[in-house]
């Protein structure tokens, strides 16, 4: 019961976060794109709660609006790579044999492949923007989930009840979805939640290739990168989106933990 309460509590927080992100453009106190050079780099004060950036734009508004781009692109990317990666990992770990060999060698190829090369090629072929950035990252990032899932499957597949199910003639797909998946879903969920922060920053890291948020779009990772040189002179420029990322990561992580707690099948 306690698990259920924790799950709903953090679930509500996530929902709140998503609602705020979606509603951001309508609730911002100032136009997040309106530049006003004379008021550039003002420290947080009564008018601008989080101060202004180098163009004089209100940071609080930009952080709000940035929630949309940042959270939604990160979530999209995370879902794609985790679902795909877990899928491959389960199949590989469960069947073993040549299926495992082939899949794992393919995984090796993508794991070893420097993601920057992909990014450069995607940028050249498809152009910039944040969706293309996600595509470039997705091509490489799923491999981690595959290997992690596969490792977890190894620890699970010899469990007595699974062996029993197999001997009973239960279909493989049923075993994988009803027995194996729930066992590893908890930990994998935690992994995905943990990756929220990394994904956000990786999406921002590609911006110099033109991949990622293009001006004047507000995006937390880009805001942190762009404000980097002002860490000592105008720290609020970096700390504000950083705090937003921290909060988001914390909420997702706690939610991930509660999911894990809840899903854990007690035998």
């Amino acid at each position, binding site marked *: 019961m306690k698990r259920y309460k924790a799950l709903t509590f953090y679930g509500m927080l996530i929902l709140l976060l998503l609602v705020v992100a979606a509603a951001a453009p309508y609730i911002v106190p100032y136009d997040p*794109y*309106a*530049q006003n*050079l*004379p008021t*550039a780099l003002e420290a947080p004060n009564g008018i601008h709660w989080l101060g202004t950036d*180098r*163009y*004089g734009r209100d940071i609080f508004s930009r952080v709000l609006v940035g929630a949309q781009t940042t959270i939604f692109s990160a979530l999209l990317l995370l879902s794609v790579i985790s679902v795909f990666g877990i899928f491959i990992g389960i199949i590989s770990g469960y069947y073993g044999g040549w299926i495992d060999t082939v899949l794992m060698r393919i995984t090796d190829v993508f794991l070893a492949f420097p993601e920057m090369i992909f990014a*450069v090629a995607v*940028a*050249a072929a498809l152009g*910039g923007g944040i969706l293309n950035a996600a595509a470039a990252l997705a091509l490489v990032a799923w491999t981690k989930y595959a290997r992690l899932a596969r490792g977890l499957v190894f620890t699970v597949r010899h469990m007595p009840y699974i062996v029993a199910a197999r001997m009973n003639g239960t279909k493989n797909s049923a075993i994988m979805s009803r027995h194996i998946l729930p066992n590893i879903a908890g930990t994998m969920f935690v992994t995905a939640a943990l990756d929220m922060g990394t994904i956000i920053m990786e999406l921002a890291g590609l*911006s*110099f*290739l*033109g*991949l990622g948020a*293009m*001006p*004047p779009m507000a995006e937390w990772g880009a805001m942190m990168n762009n404000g*980097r*040189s*002002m*860490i*000592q*002179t*105008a720290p609020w420029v970096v700390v504000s989106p950083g705090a937003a990322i921290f909060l988001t990561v914390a909420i997702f992580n706690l939610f991930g933990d509660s999911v894990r707690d809840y899903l854990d099948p007690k035998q």
Partner: protein
Amino acid sequence: MKKVTMLCLFIFIAGLLSTGCGSVDKQVNEKEKVFRYGTMAYGPAMENAGTNPHDTYYGWSTVRYGIGETLFKFNNQMEIEPWLADSYKQIDDYTVQINLRNDIIFSNGKKVTGDAVKACLEDLIAKNDRAPGDLKIKTIEAAGQSVTITSKEKVPALLNYLADPYGAIIDMEAGEKDRIVVGTGPYVAEKVTDTEIDLVKNTNYWGEVPKLDRIVVKSITDGDTLTMALQNGEIDAAQGLPYASLDLFKDENKYKISSANTSRVYQAAFNYKTKALKDLRVRQAISMAIDKDGFTRVLLHGNGVPAVGPFPGNMHFGGDVVKGQPYDIEEAKKLLQEAGYIDTDGDGYVEKDGKPLELRWLTYTSRQELPLLAESAQDSLKKIGVKLIVNATDNYKSFLKREEYDIYAKAFVTAPTGDPEYYFTTHVLDHSAYNHGFYHNDNMEVMAEELRNTFDKDKRTELAIRMQQQLLDDCAFIYAAHLKMSFVMKKNVRGFEAHPSDYYEITAALDI
């Protein structure tokens, strides 16, 4: 068991901290005078990680760090002055005789004669990629302390090109060992790596006695690291600090800043192939909407000077000797209206014939100022109803090749050798390598040809002014600002001054 691990942890961390204690090693040897210099401009990526001036851009390191010197050097107005040479005589349009000083010796003690210079220059044009095209040398003759150079074509700016760092005079007989060459400068390279150059005093220096025993030039590619290294004293001076950091060194009791206006300009070219930009009024309107003052004062933290034309004010043919478009939002709006662009649907952007005025601004990210200019322009143009779509990418060449841009913004050093011809040849003519706007003007072609054949300095200046004015009247380019570059150093550093050419850093005058 938990307790055991916690104990291990404690021991580990304690061990780490205790060995880390102690003050940072700042001065190696109290008896030696050592200058530690951090710079963003050195490294394999900049193609200057070496000291042989005949190799790509290594000459910049040779001259910057006091290892080599050229026949002529630039003063603050970017005019040439004698250095290793003390005079010259233009014999005819194709031949010039250069007379060397009599007291110059290489750091290994050998005298610098006409023959030494001849050997050096011949190696230069044999090995270097750019020098042959710039100098167009046919023959070099040496006699005593002078060399006579004959060119294949008329090269009015020959002496200026010789002042380019690739013209540093080195001892060809000594050759190159481990990236080290023998030059005439106040310091000698002891070790050269991809990230560092170690220099020692040249005891044979022909000029004023060098005051330092050792110099360490460190390549630091991260702006924040450079800033903090200067703050905690790990380096004595820094070049290439991010603009925002300069405010940290405003305390005059601890630091000094030396700045110089360079000829590096941030410019944007209008693509004449774009329908909307074929109209002069549209180009004028856009030029008028760019807030150059805001850009330099706020975004560059004062490290720039608003530009009028491609050349900066410290040059005789630069600054406000020409007239461009003033910053005038209302006038810009009026011009757009005259050209037929009106906001019919109230969305804040203007349209003509049902099509909104949307332009693609292409630029790259390796120079931090360009994305700043792009984002500022985007907001400025919004004020007059023009929608700017910014594409700031390292991949800009692909877009250039596919001609997917309406405005292309870049940074360019317009007069690296103090001579105006280089900029026009490279940007505004039909055959120019960098004429990204497909600009054409018959008059410009005529004037350029005339410039190629004019030797008289004043006439060249006058032509340059006329050509710039033509560009500005045609509104072919927006010149946003010229870069001001700075050295930041501890208060006790003397003789370390920024130069508009960006070629001279370590000299005999340097002292701490």
